[in-house]
């Protein structure tokens, strides 16, 4: 009896801990940056409210350009990604191609932003793989041409880098949403009424699908307008996007710059909110305009052309990603590699051997932080989901919003405030703070990855177990957890990958004391050593890949003689 009470207690507490982990750092962080933005930070001698930080901020040359750059690249990449995903789903949902792409989604999503960006930078640089492939027979170039890419003033390479990461994310989010809005049934109805596939999708499925994709899309807009690591690698530098500048000001040795940096962080928050507002307005507009269009009875709208474009664009996105990763592998084994040679010859293990000693510490720290953050997240998410099952009540809309909170508030804005608070309260930065910081970002992904499978688990399994006399703990450990082993491990692998890819929380909350493969890769990327950068970027890929491999192999081994639980049989 007392164990049942303990179970109720644990399951009652974990959802609140989850909510606290998601909301307290974000809210506290924003407040922690808000006060110094108006001059209040006693630890640095700021004890009066003033507008000086803002005046300083607005005097920074190029501030308008920074803000415009963030806004335009953010909105453009989100719109492009959405357009691409919608066209692709509309044209290929009913074909085998969709299934094939679906299989690649999780691994693609696991590629850390920084690694993808570094790969893309190497691919598209004047001396990159694309230029080498076309030289000299197409271009006539004997030497690397002189153009600024990546890092073009328009931010095109930044947009491209964001798109190749956001497309897999949106596709993965739509997997569950498509089931939820009964896309296949809607599509069948529309097609039997004579609609071409894409038109059927746009007119029959989209109105039901979009509301389910709204929060993920807002997360994409928020991320794209405030990214730091991708922008540092692919974005222009004169001036950089706002978020990059804010981090620069924060790291300025002059402590007085912190007040201005706080104002900058608040400006970033306003900027992201503005971007979300613009997106929301456009959303309304499109909804209004398309209302008539949905019922005008036309059965096609250039379906074939659009399908062709979707096919080509999706191929390009996936191809760029693959080529970027392959390029990283080549650079890591390149010795002397003159332009325009297509392959580095002979390959050498020299780079790896040289770096080996320096790799050990970052790899261990990455592993330690990622495992701890993932464990915390998985426990909290399982608790929250068990509580939901026990109350037999779906998640409230506000809880859904809290889940997305760390993804909607620009991380520069709140992490920065947390750092200021750390200083004010006297908490030492380091491993503990970094683990909590990572967990804030890991948890939403673990939740999104696990929730669908958890909710789909037939409630009769636990009813059967309880009617056989098993108490709640036994039902959880011996029935529900084994039945959920595969999705739990997959969710853990996703969480692990998210943690490995974190740049900003590691840098800011660790105060430089926690060095991971990602912080190393990003800081190396701005230097000239492509070989060493490639090695760290590859490690960023390798660690999550090992995680996904384990998540796939462990259930196959454990359930090797349990046919109904072998992954891939359904």
């Amino acid at each position, binding site marked *: 009896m007392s164990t*049942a009470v303990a179970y109720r207690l644990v399951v009652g507490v974990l959802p609140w801990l989850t909510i606290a982990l998601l909301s307290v750092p974000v809210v506290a962080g924003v407040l922690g940056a808000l006060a110094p933005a108006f001059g209040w930070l006693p630890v640095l001698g700021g004890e009066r409210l003033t507008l000086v930080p803002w005046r300083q901020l607005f005097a920074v040359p190029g501030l308008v350009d920074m803000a415009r750059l963030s806004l335009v690249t953010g909105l453009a990449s989100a719109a492009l990604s959405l357009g691409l995903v919608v066209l692709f789903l509309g044209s290929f949902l009913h074909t085998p191609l969709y299934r094939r792409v679906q299989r690649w989604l999780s691994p693609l999503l696991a590629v850390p932003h920084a690694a993808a960006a570094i790969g893309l930078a190497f691919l598209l640089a004047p001396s990159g793989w694309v230029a080498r492939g076309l030289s000299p027979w197409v271009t006539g170039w004997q030497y690397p041409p002189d153009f600024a890419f990546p890092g073009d003033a328009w931010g095109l390479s930044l947009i491209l880098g964001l798109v190749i990461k956001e497309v897999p994310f949106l596709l993965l989010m739509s997997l569950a949403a498509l089931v939820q809005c009964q896309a296949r049934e809607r599509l069948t109805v529309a097609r039997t009424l004579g609609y071409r596939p894409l038109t059927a999708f746009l007119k029959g499925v989209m109105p039901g699908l979009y509301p389910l994709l709204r929060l993920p899309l807002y997360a994409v807009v928020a991320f794209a307008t405030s990214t730091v690591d991708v922008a540092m690698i692919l974005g222009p530098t004169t001036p950089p996007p706002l978020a990059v500048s804010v981090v620069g000001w924060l790291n300025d040795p002059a402590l007085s710059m912190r007040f201005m940096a706080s104002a900058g962080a608040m400006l970033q928050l306003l900027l992201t909110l503005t971007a979300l507002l613009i997106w929301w307005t456009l959303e309304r507009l499109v909804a209004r305009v398309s209302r008539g269009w949905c019922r005008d009875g036309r059965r096609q709208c250039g379906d074939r052309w659009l399908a062709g474009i979707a096919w080509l664009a999706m191929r390009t996105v996936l191809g760029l990603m693959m080529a970027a990763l392959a390029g990283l592998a080549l650079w890591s084994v390149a010795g002397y590699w003159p332009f325009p040679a297509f392959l580095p010859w002979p390959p050498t293990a020299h780079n790896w051997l040289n770096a080996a000693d320096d790799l050990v510490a970052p790899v261990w720290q990455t592993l330690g932080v990622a495992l701890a953050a993932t464990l915390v997240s998985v426990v909290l998410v399982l608790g929250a989901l068990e509580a939901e099952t026990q109350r037999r009540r779906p998640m409230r809309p506000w809880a859904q919003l809290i889940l997305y909170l760390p993804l909607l508030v620009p991380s520069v804005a709140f992490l920065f405030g947390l750092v200021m608070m750390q200083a004010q309260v006297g908490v030492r930065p380091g491993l503990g703070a970094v683990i909590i910081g990572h967990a804030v970002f890991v948890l939403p992904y673990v939740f999104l990855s696990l929730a669908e499978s958890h909710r789909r688990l037939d409630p009769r399994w636990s009813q059967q177990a309880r009617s056989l*006399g098993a108490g709640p703990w036994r039902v959880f450990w011996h029935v529900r957890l*084994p039945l959920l082993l595969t999705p739990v491990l997959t969710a853990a692998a996703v969480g692990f990958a998210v943690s490995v890819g974190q740049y900003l929380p590691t840098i800011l909350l660790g105060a430089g004391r926690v060095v991971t493969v990602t912080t190393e890769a990003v800081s190396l990327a701005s230097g000239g050593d492509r070989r060493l950068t490639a090695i760290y970027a590859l490690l960023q890929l390798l660690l999550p890949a090992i995680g996904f491999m384990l998540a796939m192999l462990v259930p196959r081994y454990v359930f090797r003689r349990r046919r109904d639980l072998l992954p891939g049989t359904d």
Partner: protein
Amino acid sequence: MASLRLDDIVIHQGQHRLLSLDTTVAPGEVLTVMGPSGVGKSTLLAFIAGFLSPTFQAQGRVLLDETRIDTLPAEQRHVGLLFQDPLLFPHLDVAGNLAFGMVREGTRRQRRERIHEALASVGLEAFAGRDPATLSGGQKARVALLRVLLSQPRAILLDEPFSKLDAERRGEIRHWVFERVREHRLPTLMVTHDEADAQAAGGRIITLDAEQ
């Protein structure tokens, strides 16, 4: 053995009165509850077993002899439940499934022997180590009932237990289940659509109507 008393049970869904029932099932008796779908047959079983969804409100008492059980948590009611799917745990082998429900008394060896005897009694002694997924429908149904019986229930609830078996096996399994229930003198409540189930049970039949 105890009898199962359903004392003035009324189940509501909001304002809507779903069903009412007042009866006693004697030891070894199979009471059949019939009625059109949506009338709340499965809800009645969920209430007795302790899984009533919060969207329903129930009044009345469920007693095993003199003991009131509707206030107990599901795992302490000793009410065995058979669904239309056998629901053998896919992560355990056949013996593991039987062991899961067994009362923890005696040594490990004694428990293993009881499992072996139980399997032998239905001609499945060679199946102890098998993956449940490799069993036929009829074999699964037998293991599922053995599992319930080994958990030493004091009453049995059958929720359309034969509807998913193919026609030729159905009669045989049905006969076997009812025989076991009588042999153990368990009060049994069966919910079904199938007139033949009700005939074969040979006990009282209560038909629930859609109430207002």
